[in-house]
């Protein structure tokens, strides 16, 4: 349960951080950098989530479809 709650807080933290970076960069007139920062944060989180989803599908296959 500990690693799960860690992952959730990690993702929420990265999300808020990218939102803040996006706002700051936008305010200082660097729209392009702002978009790239958001995209990078999104990709980092997506990699984490995708690994967990593949874990889930492996487990479902083990439990229901193994025999």
């Amino acid at each position, binding site marked *: 349960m500990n690693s799960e*709650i860690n992952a959730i807080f990690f993702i*929420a933290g990265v999300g808020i951080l990218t939102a803040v970076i996006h706002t700051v960069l936008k305010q200082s007139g660097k729209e392009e950098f702002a978009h790239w920062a958001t995209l990078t944060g999104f990709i980092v989180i997506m990699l984490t989530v995708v690994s*967990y989803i593949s874990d*889930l599908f492996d487990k479902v296959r083990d439990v229901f*479809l193994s025999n």
Partner: protein
Amino acid sequence: MEIIQIVGLGLSAVILLVVLRGQSPQIAFLLSLLVGVFIFIFLLDRITLVIAMLEKLSVQAGVEMIFLQTILKIIGIAYIAEFAAQIAKDSGEGAIASKIELAGKILILVLALPIVQRVVETVINLLPA
């Protein structure tokens, strides 16, 4: 008291999601997806126990293994399809959600075909010629 763990996980995720939804909706979507995955993984460990008991019972009752395996496969398909459909529905794609559900239903029907065939054959054998 695992329910307290799950409720705590869910509630803290909901609080974070409420904050995050206004800032960046895409990341909020990924977070809600991840919480669903975690709860699912947590439940799968428990489901394993139930399935072990079912297998033991069916061995004792002399039920053919192929029936139990088919039922387990059907339950697995239903779980995965439901999961994906809910996620699609959550992000506003009701059309894709219903297509996923349709695919799950048809695949379940295909898996159930041999059992239906056996039932029909048994009934025909029972009928007087």
